[in-house]
């Protein structure tokens, strides 16, 4: 899960210049602050889907999954562990 959190952190600090200087802690609130605006959230969603090869369904767009980098990492990890195991044809 640390690897997932690190990849999300890297994306955020590389994408949002203010975060590059101040950094962002894994438990820091992403929502309800002015850290990321609405366009930024959509960019973050697109990154998660591309980076971790999954689709975030509409019903998973809930604050509990997006409240911090760690919350996002937990969500991604749970999605990965619940994916059906790949089987040979």
């Amino acid at each position, binding site marked *: 899960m640390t690897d997932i959190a690190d990849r999300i952190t890297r994306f955020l600090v590389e994408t949002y210049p203010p975060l590059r200087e101040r950094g962002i802690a894994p438990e820091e609130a992403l*929502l309800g602050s002015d850290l990321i*605006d609405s366009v930024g*959230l959509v960019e973050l*969603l697109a990154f998660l889907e591309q980076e971790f090869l999954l689709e975030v369904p509409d019903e998973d767009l*809930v*604050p509990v999954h997006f409240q911090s980098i760690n919350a996002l990492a937990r969500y991604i990890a749970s999605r990965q562990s619940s994916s059906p195991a790949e089987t040979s044809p």
Partner: protein
Amino acid sequence: MTTPPDEKTALLVQGFDAQSGLLTLRGPLVSLRTSLDALFREWAGEVEAEEYAFPPLLSVRSLALAEYFQAFPHLATLATRIEPGDGGVERFVRSQPRDPFEEIAPECLAAARFVLPSAACYAVYAHFQDTVLSDRLVVTVVAPCFRHEESYSAGRRQWAFSMREIVCLGPEPAVTAFLQHYRTRITAKLHEAGLPHRIAEATDPFFNKRDPRRVMQKLSPVKHEILYRDTLAIASFNFHRTFFGDRFRIRTPSGEPVYSGCVAFGLERWLSACLQEYGARLEQWPAALRPRI
């Protein structure tokens, strides 16, 4: 013996064209809707809202500033005219069939530069475009609103309906306090009246599910609705953060975009709910839902 709900709302259904989604009110229903609006106007007076009456049309330019045509193109009702240039009106008159007709071909029409808006508050932001607000500003307005929908239902979902809004612009604490005031005030009134309701998080009907504003509404709930009997949204509380302040360049003296929020009441939906609960005689409605004057 109590009157069944169907009979109580029969007057609404009688005046409804379900295909076009257009509702005609008559007799006591007109007075009841007027009474409900007077009640909401009184509530607006509690925060010294200034009342405005804006033109029913908004320019495409104004709504484009609000990114309306990306967010809600499917709802839009455009206003245009017979193309006047190059003898267009004469040509249109000559080409009319003798029999009554139901539509006018788009090639006869001028480009649409105005819209019949889908919410009353857009006119407020357009009116205050490029202004500086030194303090909190509260405005109230009632307006006919228009939303194209997949299907319609009398008193619940119409193409044309009436909306009263109370809009607050200013510093963030003032706007959040305004929204909290009305949330507390209205739910207290509904408890007093015994109208079955609950508050729920909500999202606007964005055309694109990944519209940034929709994603923000889902992840950081900024819109709440009062649901009557779990199904009918009769009022909404909307916190826009600095979206409209930014787009319409409404700023604080230090140059920052103002925050905004609004409380919206769908008049026909309130009428439908109150008819169902209390019938069509105002004197039988609870005092909490009747205006003082």
